[in-house]
């Protein structure tokens, strides 16, 4: 069994040993640092690491993992900490391996449209570094100005433009990682699709439970020649969801197809002074990109369908500045919710697209019954919901109501044939619903697959799969720390 409840003297010794191995300033162990790293952007459960390390190279990560193995100390990788399901929670304490100093772009291969970067490289910076060549890194999670490549790989992150361009797994060619034995290994190849097992397909999205990814080769995508952006408002949520269904059914695949409801519109109006038509209950943000002729054709289809469903106001961006303005409600919508309540928890269930109208009705029913507020902002094109529950986390009863409402919404997603998570991951947050989605047999198969890479209990324990050894008794402690 790993060491889980070390005394202060043991922790101080760990910090000294790690610092002498890494270097001055690369180990944080003060009470305030440990508190700062006690959760990611999922704030309901908290657990302090004993030590935070800030390695700068793959070799240093290897040394840390080997040290953890020698001392039987659990370790948890962490990028920018923007994860929304507790994937970077140091669930059993131990060492938190932050990639925040591993931000270098190591190699750029423009003729083959790929690039190698360290795991801590910020998503947006990767695109900026090749903008001069007319290329970008396609996954664009809303956190992209801070979230890291390693975090995107761990969560298989999506974003608004993944409807057309795919999620992270479609854009990573190869990984360098430190495996659980402390060996530096490469998986995948700059030439994708080769014979043998798709190890990369399993590692991407494994939430840091199968080793610590330290570098990756990623694909670079040409910037579209033309981008058209529309923001349309509708008198009913059903008009908006029907517009989404018709656009997809027409065979048009927009680059982005996003929806926001009244709650989000209110928050954005308060925060940014944006004005929407009187009586509007839903907004659709639609973006088409690519070859100019094709975009013109897609736009005609989109505008026709919007009109057919009685769009109240249709704004087409004339230039980049206007485009950014139309995106404000979508990109800053969740942030703006801070105007309405002290605490926001965002859910991430997915449903088959045609079930959107029914799903939204069910969500408002749950919100009313549980007595909490829920606003909706989501990737309508692929059925990925983001219901934002807003409440006051100083009141334990409200926290409990929000947790219960979240679980209830996810159960509805499963009943409708959907999934627990579209892009945020399972982490510790949704672990209790995994058996409901996959059954005992599905989870057994996943456990066997985890053992291919990680047969121990030190690497990011207590995530994704329920009932892991030693985790159950800790769950109460995480929750207690938050309340």
């Amino acid at each position, binding site marked *: 069994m790993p060491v889980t409840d070390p005394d202060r003297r043991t922790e101080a010794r760990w910090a000294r040993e790690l610092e002498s191995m890494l270097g001055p300033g690369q180990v944080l162990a003060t009470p305030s640092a440990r508190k700062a790293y006690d959760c990611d952007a999922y704030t309901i459960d908290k657990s302090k690491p004993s030590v935070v390390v800030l390695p700068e190279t793959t070799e240093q990560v290897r040394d840390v993992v080997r040290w953890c193995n020698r001392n039987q100390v659990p370790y948890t990788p962490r990028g920018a900490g923007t994860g929304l399901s507790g994937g970077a929670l140091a669930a059993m304490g131990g060492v938190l391996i932050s990639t925040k100093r591993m931000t270098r772009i190591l190699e750029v291969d423009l*003729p*083959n449209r790929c690039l190698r970067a360290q795991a801590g490289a910020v998503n947006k910076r990767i695109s900026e570094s090749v903008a001069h060549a007319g290329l970008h890194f396609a996954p664009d999670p809303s956190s992209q100005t801070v979230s890291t490549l390693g975090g995107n790989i761990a969560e298989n992150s*999506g974003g608004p433009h*993944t409807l057309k361009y*795919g*999620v992270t*797994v*479609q854009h990573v060619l190869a990984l360098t990682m430190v495996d659980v034995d402390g060996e530096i290994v*490469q*998986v995948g*190849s700059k*030439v994708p*699709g*080769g*014979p*043998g*097992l*798709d*190890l990369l*397909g*399993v590692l991407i*999205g494994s939430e840091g439970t199968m080793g610590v990814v330290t570098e990756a080769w990623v694909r670079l995508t040409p910037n579209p020649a033309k981008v058209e952006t529309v923001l349309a408002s509708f008198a009913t949520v059903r008009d908006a969801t029907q517009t989404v269904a018709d656009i*997809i*059914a*027409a*065979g*048009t*695949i927009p680059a982005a197809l996003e929806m926001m409801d009244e709650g989000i519109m209110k928050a954005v109006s308060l925060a940014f002074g944006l004005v929407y038509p009187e009586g509007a209950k839903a907004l659709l943000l639609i973006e088409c990109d690519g070859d100019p002729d094709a975009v013109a054709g897609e736009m005609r289809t989109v505008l026709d369908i919007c009109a057919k469903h009685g769009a109240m106001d249709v704004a087409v961006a004339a230039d980049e500045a206007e485009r950014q303005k139309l995106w404000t409600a979508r990109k800053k919508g969740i942030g703006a919710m801070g105007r309405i309540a002290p605490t926001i928890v965002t859910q991430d269930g*997915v*449903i*088959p*697209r*045609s079930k959107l109208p029914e799903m939204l009705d069910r969500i408002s029913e749950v919100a009313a019954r549980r007595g909490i507020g829920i606003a909706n902002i989501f990737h309508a094109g*692929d*059925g*990925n919901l983001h219901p934002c529950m807003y409440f006051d986390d100083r009141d334990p009863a409200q926290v409990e109501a929000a947790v219960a409402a979240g679980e209830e919404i996810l159960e509805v997603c499963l009943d409708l*044939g*959907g*999934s*627990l*998570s*579209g*892009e*945020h*991951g*399972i982490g510790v947050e949704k672990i209790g619903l*995994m058996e409901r*989605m*996959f059954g005992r*047999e*599905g989870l*057994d*198969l*996943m456990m066997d*697959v*985890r*053992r*291919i890479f990680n047969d121990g209990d030190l690497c990011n324990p207590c995530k*994704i*799969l329920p009932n892991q050894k030693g985790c159950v008794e800790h769950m109460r402690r995480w929750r207690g720390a938050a309340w």
Partner: protein
Amino acid sequence: MVNTVLEPQTVEELADAVREAGRIEVLGSGSHVAFDVRGPQACSGLEDWSVALGHPTTLLMHRLTGVVEHHPEDMVVVVRAGTRLTDLQGALAERGQCIPWASPLGDIGTVGGLLALGLPNGLEARCGGWRDWCLGMTIVRPDGRVARSGSQAVKSVAGYDVHKLMIGARGTLGVIAEVILRTLPLGARPEPSWSATGTLSASNLRIQRTLATDFAALLTAAKGLPQVADEATSTLWSADVELPRFGHDWVMRAGCGSRNLEPFDAVQTGWMRRAKKLLDPEGKLNPGALEAI
């Protein structure tokens, strides 16, 4: 002694068959049988492998067929693994949809067989491949347990994507029973932009993919051969002759063992063997194929 042949019609029958059987060879339509999934002993012809190790059971998938569910408005189809691709394409076309698969060999093979082989296709640059279309699977494990992976949601990060591990695994880790695929409107399906010369056959096929910067040199070397060349993914399908190799490239060809499953580096090969040991500890399914790497 004659091989036992099993032809399950339902997932339950498939599970029973797999549970009861000893070593099993899984066969779809046999269209790609030249990509022999058996190990080098079976292909060597030097000894009677079947006699040496005892006759394996042949599991024919051709009766486990049909579309289980098609939701055109969600662009999702659930199909049984033994369904021929032409039949699936036909059923989807009635509702104006398709799987954007374009093989130089045509729409041959079954859905399960094609997934198990995981070969590239000519629309990959624009429409992706099996790992992008496959949203989930029902998998029969060697001990007969039936496990589900993925869902009908077009985007999901819940748990490990176990179904991705089955794509290209040649039926060595589990038997694919049902598959959930995303579909594409027929109108959005592009024509392949490959250039084709001569006629290719599955029994004498070589597939090579290189970095974009090496592809012109490969084409020069392959001049005059029957071939299909897709510049968008730097992939060449050709008659099987020796052609130059390039850094990072890979080759798959009709034949046995390491001819069609050339080893990667030692680390990745080690993990593939480990996967086999963990998921099929008794070595029941398509014995030889992964052990050969």
